């Protein structure tokens, strides 16, 4: 099985194209189901955020998969191949792991270190688990990526410091006022910038937002757009300033609308309660000298941008450390992936031993027929334990073999010594379990059913699964 990734992200495509291939619009379950019917992959996870649409699969044919996946994307979204061809990237094998780990760590994000992406990756995986399209390989891959995301965030400071004007303003307000709860904000001007900043403040829990504009209807419209905000006419500006903690000025006025003297008079009436003035207008709305007033904290857009740049620079310094963590985790994942190379041989070996045991029990059936049912059960139990004991050490040794050469040598030797036909697949002892193991899935259901690759007698399989796969299976096997 091979890992393959196909995706489109902010690095390769403009926003209008990303919008057209956004899987979230029709829902991830629909996308996963549609993908299942295409029979490209045995396991699949679809990650869809506003900055990226990516499909992670585990499949048999790594060479053909990228093209099939691009075909799926064009068909699913109704876009033409030529529209997206130059914007699509793909990866295979460990590069898939590297990409996902970097995504989870926030290294591939538009704003490096932003925290939302890890949650989005988790949601993508959960959706795949619910749709039963995630299997052992992708489960392992995604769980490893959650670990990477967590490690990078706790061991580096990649996520520290505000990196947008809105966040920087809120962070400052928190340092002045302690919390945003119960605070009131006045936005002077009904423009887009003021609205966005006010929206951000609102989402951070401020109690009251008042929009003041020279044109009352503009103020009312902006207040409505924000939701839960109120509008006030221009002549109530002073009253609004008096009652507020935070003032955002964003008018298109060519001369300052708030002078130092004006703010001084307001501060006297406020008895010097702290006032945080955020002037995001260009040209400025607030006289710079107003920043000299005691308890007035005046920040203009350049000041906020300087804070943002500083934080971005600091994050940049942490990238190297985050990349080192990604590299470490890729090594671990690679070791796991290699150890999986031995799984078919282990399963085949167990099936061979089990087949011998059953054959012998059947052969001796007439001799055992005189025994009581109880005693026959005991015989069955003893032989089963014997087989398990014999296989325990070889299984452990195979699992412990680190590099692919050693695994190849072991599996080759085992295949020859025990005449394990075909190396990877053997006839199942139980015809009920006889699903074509290497056939690509035709619908969603067998994707989940193929949690453990080759079909096998249930007890053997359970053993193989518990011994070989260190992760916990997220879903019980569906009854067949």
């Amino acid at each position: 099985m091979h890992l393959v990734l196909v995706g489109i992200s902010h690095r390769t495509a403009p926003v209008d194209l990303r919008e057209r291939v956004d899987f979230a619009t029709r829902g991830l379950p629909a996308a996963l189901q549609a993908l299942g019917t295409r029979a490209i992959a045995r396991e699949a996870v679809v990650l869809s955020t506003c900055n990226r649409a990516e499909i992670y699969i585990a499949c048999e044919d790594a060479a053909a998969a990228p093209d099939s996946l691009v075909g799926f994307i064009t068909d699913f979204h109704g876009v033409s191949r030529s529209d997206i061809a130059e914007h699509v990237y793909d990866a295979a094998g460990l590069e898939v792991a590297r990409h996902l780990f970097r995504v989870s760590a926030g290294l591939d994000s538009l704003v490096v270190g932003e925290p939302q992406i890890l949650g989005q990756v988790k949601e993508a995986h959960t959706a795949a688990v619910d749709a039963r399209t995630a299997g052992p390989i992708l489960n392992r891959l995604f769980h490893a990526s959650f670990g990477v995301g967590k490690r990078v965030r706790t061991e580096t400071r990649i996520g520290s410091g505000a990196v947008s004007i809105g966040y920087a303003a809120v962070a400052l307000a928190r340092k002045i006022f302690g919390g945003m709860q119960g605070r009131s904000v006045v936005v002077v001007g009904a423009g887009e910038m003021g609205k966005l900043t006010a929206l951000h403040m609102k989402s951070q829990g401020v109690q009251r937002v008042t929009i003041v504009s020279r044109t009352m209807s503009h103020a009312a419209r902006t207040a409505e757009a924000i939701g839960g905000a109120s509008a006030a006419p221009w002549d109530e500006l002073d009253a609004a300033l008096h009652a507020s903690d935070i003032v955002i000025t964003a008018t298109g006025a060519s001369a300052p609308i708030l002078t130092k003297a004006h703010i001084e008079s307001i501060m006297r009436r406020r008895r010097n309660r702290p006032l945080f003035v955020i002037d995001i207008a260009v040209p400025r709305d607030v006289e710079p000298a107003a920043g000299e007033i005691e308890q007035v904290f005046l920040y203009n857009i350049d000041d906020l941008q300087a804070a943002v740049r500083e934080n971005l620079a600091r994050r940049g310094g942490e990238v190297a450390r985050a990349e080192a963590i990604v590299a470490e985790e890729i090594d671990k994942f690679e070791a796991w992936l290699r150890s999986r190379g031995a799984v078919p041989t282990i399963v085949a070996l167990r099936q061979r031993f089990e087949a011998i045991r059953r054959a012998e029990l059947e052969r001796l059936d007439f001799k055992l027929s005189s025994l009581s049912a109880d005693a026959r059960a005991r015989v069955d139990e003893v032989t089963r334990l014997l087989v398990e004991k014999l296989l325990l050490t070889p299984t452990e040794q195979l699992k412990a073999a680190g590099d692919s050469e050693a695994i190849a040598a072991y599996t080759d030797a085992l295949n020859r010594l025990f005449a394990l036909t075909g190396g990877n697949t053997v006839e199942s002892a139980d015809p009920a379990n006889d699903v074509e193991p290497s056939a690509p899935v035709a619908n969603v259901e067998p994707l989940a059913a193929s949690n453990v690759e080759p079909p096998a007698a249930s007890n053997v399989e359970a053993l193989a699964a518990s011994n070989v796969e260190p992760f916990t299976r997220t879903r019980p096997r569906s009854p067949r």
Partner: protein
Amino acid sequence: MNAVPLALYSAALVAYVWHFARRSVAAGRAATTLLVFAALAHTFVVGMQTMEAGHVPMTGPTSAISTFVWLLCLAYLYTEMMTDERAMGVFITPLLVALQTIPAFRPGVEDRAAVLQGPLFGVHVSSLLFAYASFALACVIGITYVLLFKEIKAKHLGFFYARLPSLQVLDRMNHATVGIGWIFLTIGIAVGAMWAAQAQGTYGAAGDPRVQAMHLLDPKIFVALVCWFVYSFELFAARRIGWGGRRAAYLSALGFAIVLLNLVPVSYFLTTSHNF
């Protein structure tokens, strides 16, 4: 005996500095743990001295300083636990270490003069020591307020911005600690005056020069009254004329500078009424 708490205070100081500089959570926990042990050791010392001398060691300037340090440490630990905020430790512990060196190198509890018996005297000294501990906290909170205020005003969001709680929180803590301190300072001074009036009736008449010197112009008493006016003004100004924030912080620092003056040099060298 006072050297053991001193050593622990010093260790806590190092841990708090480490915690503050590196923002290490582990160092912060270690610092608190060390300070708790220092407080326990100091409690033990104060307890032993109380048993030995038969009274709480606060009648002479040296033992009063030791008891003050002990109270300040407890008050700080209380605030740290209430606010879950360790940033102030790096400012408090140097004060603890500096003051604790005095009792550590001047061992022994001063004998208690006969004049210093009675419950009023105990209330007088313990209220004042507790008031001073509150003012020490207020001073430290005020200093951190000013440091953070300057960074935000200068639009240089750096070292303290990343480490201190918000201005509003610092301002409220400052106000609360000054308020508590002011109440105990008022009680301490009032009870002191009552006690002095009593003592003057018996011991002053008997010719004790210290009791005779207990009037408003004695340095120790005078400076304590100056303190009372400074803190009264701070509380009044914050309410009435909007002198919160940085101005209150400066007043807290000024007030505590006067407290320290009263606690160390005035006690040892200047006062004629309080040198027991």
